């Protein structure tokens, strides 16, 4: 950590919000206005470092991994496994074998549902989630419950979008086979007290999966400190490519799980009498993996580590606070998601303007926001609304972006007045 200190000081001089120049996609005109990108919770833009790493692999090093003895295959393998090491250090996993590459958070959660839970679940067992989960941390559990007769319990949220902690803890007992919770809500921005919940669950021997898709781009994450059993996240929300993600799993948990998909790379020996599976993490990486995606993700991790996640967290918190206070000044504003502990996301409604109309008018002024249910329909139902407009931040956003957002919202009010 001491090695990072000078870097932090250096970065404080050049705030991450001034790092727009690192992200070529941000440097363009949309409908005659310079782009203000406030949809990073859906997908973040990639820095040149990531784009170049992917391009360089495609141009110079492409070959299959773990296969050939030739030079390109060796280079591809080195780069792919190097990315795994970078990811391991990024979330501070204990060993590299605990980092399984997946297509994304969704596939990582499905892997746990099908490989860790399904073989042992039976009628009478329970799975506990919360009301603010993304569909990807709801549907895999619904499916495995249907397959096994287990029951899905959902802990409620309050008016501010915070988990009712006592209720959730009350649901934890010897019948619960896994607790699956978001680290940060994608629709509301609420930060969950995951460390406290892991501790509580572990006191009852309940394993915990954390959906970290909305946390890893915005704050330091240390899976050993959290002590969670599984932690899932996606590359494309942390400035990497799409189609690559990570399942961190404690080694003992992963060892206990059967392979989920069969194919090449996940085997040691195949005959028609039987097959010996490969060791971790390869037994969960059947088939040729997303090599360029992993390399891009590794480059994204390297880029983030160069800035420092604590620097990014501080910067985003400042911009989020500014956004919240500026949005509150807009007449007719209703903020959805006002948890005490929040990160990077603000959902809102403006007068009775439908979010989609707002999205179109804002886009017209070069401001990109997400509108709709954000793949969290139960959250929308909870607040009795069909959807929201959502502005979400990343390290490259600054106060000017917020001013442009507010300006465009006031313009929208004029059209609908």
């Amino acid at each position: 950590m001491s090695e990072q200190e000078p870097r932090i000081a250096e970065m404080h001089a050049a705030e991450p919000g001034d790092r727009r120049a690192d992200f070529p996609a941000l440097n363009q005109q949309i409908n005659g206005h310079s782009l203000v990108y406030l949809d990073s919770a859906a997908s973040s833009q990639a820095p040149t470092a990531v784009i170049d790493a992917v391009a360089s692999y495609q141009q110079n090093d492409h070959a299959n991994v773990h296969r050939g003895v030739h030079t390109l295959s060796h280079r591809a393998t080195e780069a792919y496994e190097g990315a795994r090491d970078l990811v391991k250090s990024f979330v501070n996993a204990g060993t590299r074998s605990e980092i399984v590459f997946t297509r994304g958070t969704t596939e990582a959660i499905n892997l746990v549902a099908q490989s860790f839970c399904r073989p042992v679940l039976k009628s009478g067992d329970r799975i506990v989630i919360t009301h603010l989960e993304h569909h990807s941390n709801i549907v895999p559990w619904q499916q495995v419950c249907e397959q096994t007769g287990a029951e899905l319990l959902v802990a409620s949220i309050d008016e501010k979008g915070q988990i009712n902690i006592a209720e959730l803890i009350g649901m934890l007992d010897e019948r619960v086979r896994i607790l699956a919770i978001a680290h940060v809500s994608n629709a509301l921005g609420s930060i969950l007290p995951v460390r406290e919940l892991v501790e509580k669950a572990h006191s009852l021997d309940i394993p915990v999966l954390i959906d970290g898709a909305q946390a890893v781009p915005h704050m330091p994450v240390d899976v050993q400190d959290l002590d969670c059993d599984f932690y899932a996240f996606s590359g494309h929300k942390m400035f990497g490519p799409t189609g690559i993600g990570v399942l961190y799993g404690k080694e003992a948990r992963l060892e206990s799980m059967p392979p989920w998909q069969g194919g090449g790379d996940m085997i040691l020996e195949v005959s028609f009498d039987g097959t010996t599976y490969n060791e971790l993490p390869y037994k969960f990486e059947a088939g040729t993996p997303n090599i360029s995606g992993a390399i891009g993700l590794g480059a994204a991790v390297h880029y983030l580590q160069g800035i420092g996640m604590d620097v990014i967290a501080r910067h985003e918190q400042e911009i989020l606070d500014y956004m919240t206070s500026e949005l509150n000044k807009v007449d007719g504003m209703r903020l959805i998601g006002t948890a005490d502990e929040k990160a990077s996301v603000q959902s809102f409604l403006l007068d009775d303007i439908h979010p989609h109309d707002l999205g179109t008018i804002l886009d017209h002024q070069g401001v990109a926001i997400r509108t709709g249910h954000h793949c969290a329909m139960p959250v929308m139902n909870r607040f009795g609304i069909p959807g929201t407009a959502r502005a979400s931040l990343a390290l490259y956003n600054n106060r000017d972006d917020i001013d442009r957002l507010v300006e465009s919202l006031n313009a929208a009010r004029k059209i609908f007045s």
Partner: protein
Amino acid sequence: MAAAAPSQEELRDLYRELILDHARNPRNFGKLAEPYHLAEGINPLCGDKLKVYLQLEEDGQIADASFEGSGCAISIASASLLTEAVIGMTKDEAIGFFSAVINSLTGTEAVKNFDLGKLAALQGVREFPARVKCATLAWHALNAAIHDDQQTATTE
């Protein structure tokens, strides 16, 4: 490069006064008395849901039409204009009108030789590809209601 960006004029064209008026004060909003023909339209992308109700005479004339549901200004205005337009039409006329409207919103060129009446106001949506489905939602539900298609109509 993407297609030419819509201009401020085109935005005003999308949210023109007639559209905003129907969005704020939708006509024929609510359920009809039974018996009626009903179809539901859903736009899976945004979750907008509309129900279109029709009362049909024995000769196939649409005696009354209404809708209910929630959606953006474009989908509500489109549904409101739809109900106004189809009351008094025969089923066949309404099916022809449905085709003309869909064509006017999704076709490669503006519809000629067909009087769309007030529905011409919806054509501003052509410049906003992401919003075309909002405008067509009620029309797919209308088509399903006429054909007594029990399945939920979708814009997909």
